[in-house]
Every structure is written in C-alpha cells, then in structure tokens.
C-alpha cells in the first residue's frame, strides 16, 4: 500500500503584531491508502493548522518554511508537490474537495445557512465529478442515504437549520464525500456531538472509510476516540509530533512522557474513586515556546541541562515507531 500523503519537515509561522510565532515546527507524518491516521493533542498543539496547510487553506499571514515537503499521490497516480502550488491555482482547487475532503467540528457553522444542503452538495459534485445537474442531484441523494439520513429526497432540499446536530454532521460527511475524495481530513468531527451520537458517527466514519478505501486523518484531543478509529497515531505537543506509530502499540507501550501522561489521564470506570491524574502544569503559550524539548517544562523525567537546552531528534526505538525524546536517544545523549 502506497503513501497517499507524505508530509516532511512542515514548519508554519504566522506574522502577528507580537512578532513571528511558530505554532507548527518540523512536523512529519504520512497517511496510507485505506488507513486512518489519528492526530491527537491538546487545543493549540497545531493539529488543525497542520492539516489546513496540506489543503493550503492558511490565511495570508501564514508562512510555510521553504524546506517543507508535502507530497500527495492523486487518484490518477500523479504525484503532487502541494507546497509548490499557488493557493489560488486550479491545481489546488482540484485537490480541495475532489482529492482531499475535509469535515469540521461545527457542522452548523460549516454549512452556509442560506443554501440548502443539496445546493452545496451539488455544487461540490459538479465541480469534481459530474457536471450534469440532474445526475449530480442523484449522486447527492444516494450519498445522503449512504450516511444514514432517512428520506434523503426530502432532506436534500432542506436548510441546515431544519436538521438536528447529528443529522447535520451526517450531512456534512455526505457533503465532503460526495465529491469522491481519496483522503478525508476530519477535524474533531465528533467533539460537538452528544456521546451517543458521537459513537454512531464514529461507526459511520469507520465503515465509510473501509468501504470507500479512503485514507483518513482523524483529528481529536481524545485518545479514546483514536483507539476506536485509527490504525496509526501521531501525538502532537506545542506544534511538534512527539511520538507516532501504530495505535495499538503506542497505547500499550507509550514511549514519550507526554503520551504516558495523556494515557494516565483518561478516567477509568475501574477506578471511579481514584482522583484523576492530569498531566501536570499548563500548556505554554505559543508565543513563549520553551527552548529545547517543548515538553520539558511539564515533564517529570526531564534531564536537567539537556532537555531545556537542546531539541531532541526523532528516533526509532522500535521498527515502525518514532519518538522525540532524549530519554530514548542514548547515542544522541552521549554525543551531547
């Protein structure tokens, strides 16, 4: 199975009134066809910004560093160097929607309130798949049915405000999938939903991803959700991926102290009376990114004099795993 998307050394800076801030630094990950990569981290850790960079949806104040490489393999086998595309070009518009679909946390806000669900779906289908309006409408109805909306022929002419939250999120998924993308980026798609609906939407997404053979990037701050849906996981902290690998292995044997902290913080039904064990400290502001390892200010295992001074490199403690931590880099430690 080939790589659908490879991102290497992604670094994003924003020009702001307080100077240049760098919310994403040296991020590398890849997504395979038919597999799901879970991107997990606290708010502000750069998950959304990184995926927006892949779609070239960042605002004009954002700068992508010159050594960033983002390679996407299109459905026709063509290799696209996304970082070189002009964000207003026809090539990037073909990628957006047609190759890479995106769904967002707020289904209400991601639909325009003044057009029907069908209007927005048919627009996307006609842009990427089927210019004929009648056939595009049929594809849209079929897709609404596919995501489990009852009476799709009526729903298609409804406005977003005429639907419930769960229905809107299903419609949003249908909208993103209707243009036939090979990669789906889901940015916290279940966070705004009730827990019961959350489980239904997760099931639906897993099923659709498997049936359509798509690759998927699933962004969440919830490691529990990752365990349910993603085969691979990348843990982000302050704009850096601190650990990545197959989900099952990372959860069973987390290498990075931050991942360990996150897993320990998940409340468990077996230990209802025990106090929760949060990761100590607060996430620093992106304008005051710590030097060295960004996590050293909150790390219980931090090595004095080393972690606060030097940025750890990414190493492979086991085949298929990667971690950025001095604790696991004996060779680097002795070199320093």
């Amino acid at each position, binding site marked *: 199975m080939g790589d659908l998307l490879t991102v290497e050394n992604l670094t994003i800076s924003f020009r702001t009134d307080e100077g240049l801030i760098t919310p994403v630094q040296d991020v590398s990950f890849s997504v395979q066809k038919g597999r799901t990569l879970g991107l997990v981290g606290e708010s502000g850790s750069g998950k959304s910004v990184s995926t927006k960079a892949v*779609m070239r*949806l960042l605002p004009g104040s954002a700068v992508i560093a010159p050594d960033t490489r983002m390679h996407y393999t299109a459905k026709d086998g063509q290799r696209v160097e996304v970082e070189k595309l002009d964000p*207003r070009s026809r090539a990037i*518009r*073909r*990628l*957006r*929607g*047609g190759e890479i*679909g*995106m769904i*967002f946390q*707020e289904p209400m*806000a*991601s*639909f*325009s*309130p*003044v*057009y029907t669900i069908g209007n*927005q779906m048919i*627009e*996307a289908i006609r*842009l*990427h798949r089927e210019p004929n309006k009648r056939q595009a409408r049929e594809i849209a109805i079929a897709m609404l049915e596919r995501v489990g909306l009852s009476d799709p022929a009526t729903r298609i002419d409804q*406005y977003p*405000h005429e639907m419930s939250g769960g229905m809107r999120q299903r419609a949003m998924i249908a*909208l*993103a999938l209707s*243009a036939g993308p090979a990669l789906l980026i889901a940015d916290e798609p279940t966070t705004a939903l009730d827990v019961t609906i959350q489980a239904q939407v997760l099931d639906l997404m897993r099923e659709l991803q498997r049936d359509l053979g798509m690759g998927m990037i699933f962004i969440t701050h919830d490691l529990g959700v990752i365990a349910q849906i993603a085969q691979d996981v990348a843990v982000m902290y302050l704009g850096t991926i601190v650990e990545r690998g197959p989900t099952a292995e990372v959860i069973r044997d987390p290498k990075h102290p931050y991942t360990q902290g996150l897993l320990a913080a998940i409340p468990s039904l077996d230990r209802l009376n025990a106090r929760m064990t949060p990761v100590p400290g607060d996430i620093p502001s992106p304008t005051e990114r710590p030097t060295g390892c960004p996590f050293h200010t909150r790390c219980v295992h931090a090595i004095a004099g080393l972690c606060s001074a030097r940025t750890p490199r990414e190493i492979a403690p086991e085949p298929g795993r990667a971690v950025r931590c001095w604790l696991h880099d004996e060779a680097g430690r002795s070199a320093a």
Partner: protein
Amino acid sequence: MLRFTAERFVGMIVTMLLVSLMVFIIMELPPGDYADRYAFRKYSGTGVSVTEADIQAIRVELGLDKPMLLRYFDWIGNIVLHGDFGQAFAFETSVTKVIGDKALLTTAILFGTLIITYLVSIPIGIYAAVKRASFADYGLTTFSYLGLALPNFLLALILLYFANRWFNADIGGLFSAEMKDAPWSLAKAGDLIAHLWLPAIVLAWSAVAYQLQTVRATMSDELNKLSVTAARARGVPETKLLIKYPARLAINPVVSTIGFDVNRIFSELPIVAVVLGLTELGELLLRAYLDLDMYVAGAILLLLTFMIVFMNFISDILLAWLDPRIKLGG
C-alpha cells in the same frame, strides 16, 4: 416565499392606510383653513369687509365644512379609486397637475441616488474587506469618509464648479434649456439622465460612505466564517465563492436599511435642490404649508411616506430572498 410576500403586502397596505390617516390629521392641525387664506387673498386691499358668514360660504363651496372623518374618506377614496388627489386651492387646478412632474423628477432623483449608492458601495465594500489593511482599503475608506465629513450643499457646489469647468456642462436644473418645456420623449429622458448624475452623486456620497463601511465590516466578519473555509476546502473557485457565500450575507444590513436611505435622501434633497436649482417636491411642500393648501401638502406627504413604506416592503422581500431563515420568523 409567495405566502411571505402576500403577508408583507397586506402589512404594507395597512401601514399605508394608517399613514394616510396620520397625514390627514397633520393637514388638519394648523390653525385656520384655506377658506381664511382665500378670503384674505381675494379681498385684502380691496376695502371689502369680510364677515364670518362670507368665510363660511367659501368653506361650504370648497367642501371644508363637512366633518373631518367624512372628508378623510372622500379624500382617500378619490385617491385610491380615481387617482384624484383633490384641488390645489392656491393654484386653482388639480393637485395632480401641480405635483405631477415634480413627483416624477423627485422619484427619478431618488432612484438615481439609490442605484449609485448600491452600485458603488457594495462592490467596493466587498473589495475593501477582501483586501483588508491594504493600501487600496485605506485609500477607499478615506475617500468615502470625505463624503460623510463634507456637507451636501458644499459638495454640490464643488461638483457644480468642476462639472462646469471640465465637462463644460450646463449644470443646474434637471433639463437643458431647450428640453425644459418639451413634451416627454426619449430625447428628453436622455437629457434628464445627463443632468441627473450630479444631484445623484451629491446625495449618494454620504450614503456610499456609510454603506461601504457597513459592507466592509460585515464582509470581514463573513470571510472568517467556517462555512467560507469549508466551501474553499471543497474547491469552489475564489470569485464565485466570495459572491455566493460571504457577500450574499454581507449585503444583508444594506438591504435592510433601504428605507432609511430613502428617508435620508428625502430630507437632504431640498437643500441640494436649492443649490443645484432643481424643481422637486420639498420646496412645494413648504409653500403649500404656508398657504394652508392642504391637499397639495397632503399629496406630497402621502407620496413621500408611501415611497418609504413601499421601499421597506421591497427591502423585506429582498431580505427574505437573501436569507431564507427570515421567512421562518415571518
């Protein structure tokens, strides 16, 4: 949409009837009536002494002796059924003759001004929001503030001066000399348009400044909406995207204030009209009041308020079309 339109239409008719009643009451309010003025005018300086009975006779002759409510129904009935606005006492002819042309010209100025206002402010406001904080944005903003800062009559004088110097235009009035008394024709309409742009620009400028800032602000808000990012993430081409998604909602506050713009134009028009030598309704309204020529004053007031109510109706319909959520509340 049909039901919504029908509801708003009925609402408009009811409003207009209430307005007409109020206008009639306002006409009745000044002390004395036209019978007094008529007697004064006819016999003043002739040495004839006028008795109360003589005035009463005039009153009966003009139909002013009937009870007020009855006269209201006569008046509004004739307007609705026959388009007859009654007698212009001071001119000794029908009101329709007196105000006809002036009403038409006022309407022309009104629509000319509205068209210029929206044609300029909406696209430029959108452009300024998209190019936010650029040189073009600041330049356009400054230029539009000039319109807010300068009083209209001054603007009128300045434009009059330059139009005359640069274009050698015979500005002043709405028609050139040879067309002034000609019957209506295509050439005369063309002549009107050639003269209309100056008062329209003067009246539109401050409205443009105001609406441009409104569009720029709402458009900036709309551009940051997730729905716009989502549409961009679906590969919608940028220009189409801007028009279809944020711009449609950004012009919402402009459309909802069409009625205010009409109102403002009517109140600013008289001063501009004096400076530019236009004939319009405002001046006539003042004269009719001084003469207690109530049917002329009433007709003008009625036309102006009807125009505002009607434009509000249009604005309601446009709003519902722009944002279908509005119909739910209707």
